[in-house]
């Protein structure tokens, strides 16, 4: 027990090593939060383009063109590892630009997550009964109004569990930030490990932090789910 206490102090207190963790938490949160937002926006736009192109009897040439671009994006992003995407973004695309690494990470994870969110949203949009769409249009609402007020809210409710899952995956995926020397939770823990030569404490500490974050996140998603289900009484 005494040994545990010494190790705890060595890993978390001495030389303000806890700062590696708090900095890490701040980075992980910032990157995850903005990446989720970017992913949601990208995903929603792509899902609407994709499902519109699929539903239309005779899609116009520009819709077909956009659909092809979206498909290409999905294939590339889902077909390559997030880590390679991060390295490409940092060393190849922003290689010669002085840019905040957090922005690089946000862009990478946002664009990456957008591909998965797009497919989640698309399945949600396709799951809403076609009659809902027809009812909206026959009341005089235009395509965008029908999508925004009628289809998307129902689709969102249907896909919320899958979406929550994607957020959790994204949060944990940011643990590769260390590869571009960005101090997130994982990188912070690893730095401490290299200073104290103690693997157990910092790594389990990092694991515990992730676990708490994910638990809080899934709890929030669960609450939102219950709130949206009011209309199903």
């Amino acid at each position, binding site marked *: 027990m005494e040994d545990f206490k010494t190790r705890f102090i060595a890993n978390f207190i001495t030389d303000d090593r806890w700062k590696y963790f708090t900095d890490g938490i701040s980075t992980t949160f910032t990157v995850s939060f903005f990446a989720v937002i970017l992913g949601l926006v990208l995903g929603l736009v792509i899902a609407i383009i994709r499902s519109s192109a699929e539903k239309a*009897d005779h899609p116009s040439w520009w819709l077909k063109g956009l659909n092809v671009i979206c498909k290409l994006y999905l294939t590339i992003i889902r077909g390559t590892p997030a880590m390679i995407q991060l390295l490409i973004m940092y060393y190849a695309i922003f290689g010669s630009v002085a840019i905040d690494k957090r922005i690089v990470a946000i862009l990478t994870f946002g664009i990456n997550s957008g591909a998965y969110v797009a497919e989640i949203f698309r399945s949600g949009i396709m799951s809403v*009964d076609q*009659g*809902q769409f*027809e*009812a*909206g*249009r*026959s*009341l*005089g*609402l*235009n395509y965008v*109004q029908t999508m925004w*007020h*009628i289809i998307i*809210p*129902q689709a969102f*409710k249907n896909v919320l569990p899958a979406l929550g899952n994607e957020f959790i995956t994204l949060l944990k995926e940011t643990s590769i930030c260390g590869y571009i020397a960005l101090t997130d939770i994982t990188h912070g823990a690893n730095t401490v490990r290299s200073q104290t030569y103690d693997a157990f404490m910092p790594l389990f500490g990092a694991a515990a932090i992730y676990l708490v974050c994910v638990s809080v996140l899934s709890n929030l998603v669960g609450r939102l789910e219950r709130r*949206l289900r*009011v*209309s*199903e*009484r």
Partner: protein
Amino acid sequence: MSAKEQTLFEIKDLCKSFGDLQVLKGISTEIKKGEVVAIIGPSGSGKSTFLRSLNLLEVPTQGQIFFEGLDITDPKCNINLYRQKIGMVFQHFNLFPNMTILQNMTLAPIKVLKKDKAEAEKEAIQLLKRVGLEEKANAYPSQLSGGQKQRIAIVRAMCMHPDVMLFDEPTSALDPEMVGEVLNVMADLAKAGMTMVIVTHEMGFAREVATRVVFVDEGQIKEENTPAEFFDHPKNPRLKEFLSKVI
């Protein structure tokens, strides 16, 4: 020309194909203001497709539809504008499950007609009173019976003050005991002078409420007449056969 005889719909040689299957094979007719037109026919005859063409939920492959003198099949026309004036009631109600009854009814008036919320709600409540459902204003569709849902669907369409109402088998998805309450609302509407086009299997209703009955078979209008003539002295052999089976 008196207002009573004003033509709302003029349909010219309407054709619709789904892939190789031709569902409508040249339908031409007129629907005048104040008319209550019942469309009957065997399943698969194209009667629903015809009705859905009237507000372009199905886009015709050929032919023209004039609504209040304007060709709505012209790709340049803004269909959203005409759909505001054409109410539609569906077989499966299609209420928005994520909204309360009041929200269902006020969505389009607020978003499309840009009415203010209080005004739209006041009007919605009045309509709800007319169909005896004002206590359901804040309920969700899932809390209502089929008959109640369909009555709401009718008043939801009414909130847009349409010039004509289209009904696509409005009672086919209902339990038998609930058919009456919906038909009553529709009969009241007809009495109030609303122009209505109704695809239905309710022959008794067609006979009593309709001003004209149309028999659609194999994608064509085979016979149309006043209800009395239509049901008592059918001329078309297919119609005779059809009536002998359903009545």
